[in-house]
């Protein structure tokens, strides 16, 4: 097999995979514009007269409020996770603190336990504190849940910083703050962006805790999407429309951060 045929086959395979992964998203967007009876038809239809009724219905149900709650929880959780992860990751990589070196495996072990095992004690604690159905409580929980991942990611990025640069700034008399924020952090900024984006996406998509820890004022978008499921009626078009709206902020955030993300993801590679 000559090289050009091989190349064409690889390209073809890539396109097949891309289309296979993209198709459900495309179908969701398409369904959002179908009338309900067409969306749930036994024979899927590609051509139809488009309607924005699904979008209208989703917005009429007060989707804006749920989106704003999701934004509050996700942005606050991202700030909490990033602000706490930077010094923690620094202490586990460049400026190693002996007493906490073993904490690394502890950090990640907190992710091993299924959320279902944690939710009941968490529910009871929040109930006692009167913090159920509070959006900032949810943000703190999301920040805490995502902190281990952020620390692990940032630690691996900090490890990539050439130690000579750190030594040079120390020789020049830089203090710890200057060392972290003026020297090391700018070098791993793409990594920080990736960790922040991952935290944002995880928080934005979280369903289980949001369902159980919020009831009304602090409800976020994922349980709201679930509420369109109707055991006695068709709901595919309106659910697809609402899901498309809910996916947009994450797609936009990913698109904006694309360049940083690619740099961040390749930071672990040998330079």
């Amino acid at each position, binding site marked *: 097999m000559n090289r050009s045929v091989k190349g064409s086959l690889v390209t073809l395979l890539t396109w097949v995979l891309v289309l296979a992964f993209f198709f459900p998203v495309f179908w969701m967007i398409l369904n959002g514009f179908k009338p309900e009876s067409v969306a749930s038809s*036994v024979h899927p239809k590609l051509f139809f007269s488009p309607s924005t009724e699904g979008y209208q219905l989703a917005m009429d149900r007060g989707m804006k409020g749920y989106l704003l709650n999701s934004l*509050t929880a996700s942005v606050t959780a991202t700030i909490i996770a990033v602000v706490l992860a930077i010094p923690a990751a620094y202490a586990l990589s460049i400026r190693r603190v002996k007493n906490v070196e073993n904490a690394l495996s502890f950090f990640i072990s907190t992710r091993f336990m299924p959320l279902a095992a944690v939710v009941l004690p968490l*529910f009871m604690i929040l109930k006692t504190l009167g913090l159920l*159905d509070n959006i900032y409580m949810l943000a703190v929980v999301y920040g805490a849940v995502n902190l281990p991942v952020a620390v692990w990611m940032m630690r691996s990025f900090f490890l990539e910083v050439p130690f000579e640069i750190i030594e040079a700034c120390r020789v020049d008399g830089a203090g710890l703050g200057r060392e972290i924020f003026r020297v090391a952090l700018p070098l791993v900024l793409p990594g920080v962006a990736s960790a922040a984006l991952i935290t944002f996406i995880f928080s934005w998509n979280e369903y289980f805790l949001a369902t159980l820890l919020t009831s009304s004022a602090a409800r976020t978008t994922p349980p709201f999407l679930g509420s369109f499921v109707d055991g*006695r009626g068709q709901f595919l078009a309106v659910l697809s429309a609402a899901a498309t709206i809910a996916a947009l902020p994450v797609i936009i955030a990913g698109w904006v951060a694309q360049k*940083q993300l690619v740099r961040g993801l390749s930071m672990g590679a040998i330079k």
Partner: protein
Amino acid sequence: MLSSKRALTFGAGALASALALAACSSGNVSTDSGSGGAAGGKVTLNLATVNNGQMKDMEKLKTEYEKANPGTTVNFQVMEEGDLRAAVTADVASGAGQYDVVTIGAYETPQWGANGWLVDLTPDLKSDSSYDVDDILPPVRDVNTYDGKLFAVPFYGESSILMYNKDLLSKAGVTLSENPTWQQVADAAKKVNSADTSGICMRGKPGWGDLFAPLTTVVQTFGGNWYDDKWNATVNTPEWKQAVTFYKTMLDQSGEKDPVSYSFNECLTALKEGKAAMWADASVAASMLEADDSPVKGKMGYAHMPVEKTKQSGWLWSWNLAIPSSTKNKDAALKFVKWATSKDYIKLVGQKIGWSNVPPGSRTSTYEIPEYKEAAAAYAPITLDVMSSVNPKQPGVNPQGWVGIQYVSIPEFQDVGNQCAQLVADYIAGRGSVDDALAKCQTLAQAAGDKHKS
């Protein structure tokens, strides 16, 4: 370095702006800050509910209630059925008091009432003659009563009926009586079945509320049941085997392809598009088949759920409003519950939204409203007839120790029903034998039944 620094500054600025924006506008899902009691004469009621047509209509009409009761705001929190069960159970069982009114099924009411989680509505409803509690359909009242106390009131009720496409049946030369037997239905399905159209569509999707809703009624009319009256499991009996084998054979011979992926909505679509000729399922489906945009409007016939050894075999389900004992707004919650399940509310739905959208299966008087009788002429009489004649105290051939038809009112049943449904669905899909499925199911059911032996 400089560009990285700028990027950091920009990123931090963007995050701070987004947070400020989000913080300014957060929490406007509800119109008030939680169920904050009755301070200053203002009350906010949080209502947890399921996403169905009747509740969506109630959400639209709540402004009428708020107008008539200044100072009261009602927040609707609509959830998927599974989420609703999880969220409301956690809240009510722990006494968290996040919800003032909850939507629960007939399965939950007696159990939650027995646990002391719900307010007893009997004294308030009995003393209010305008509410007319005796107008609630007696079988629906029975399933929401525990120890003589009414713990929840229905806003929607349903039984199950047989629905068939008259055109397709007459083309095949088949006629059905109003009270057919399962064997007659299976024979009819066989005659109507073709490459394009399945003779019958029945639920096969695993789940206690999916496959086991119709299948339990088939088992009961074949003479079987989950337990005897002493909580001995009776799943490995010949009656169960006969019923389950009959169900699979009927689906194999004339049912939809891949039945284990079919539940209510899938069969509804198949009937509407003429891909199935018959369907035995929830009575509310008739209103959807007769809706203005339905291609089969006016072409459908309706009959009682097919039987074998019993006189009736329809199921009985209701969605109800209840007030958790942990609410801080009991009086306001009670007032709202009475409004939402009153005769006047039913008329309000008819006038404001449409007579075919009136909540069915809750009150006898609904079926006496002339406008409703006209709008729902095709299916209202049979719905009332079936709902009034089913017996939730003894739906099968033998006595049972609980009140309810297509479920057993014990907390373990959801789990037992789901696991057994998976086993039976495997058998329906040809991945196992009926004896294996029922033997395993018997063990599961017995372990649950043992906890209730006195």
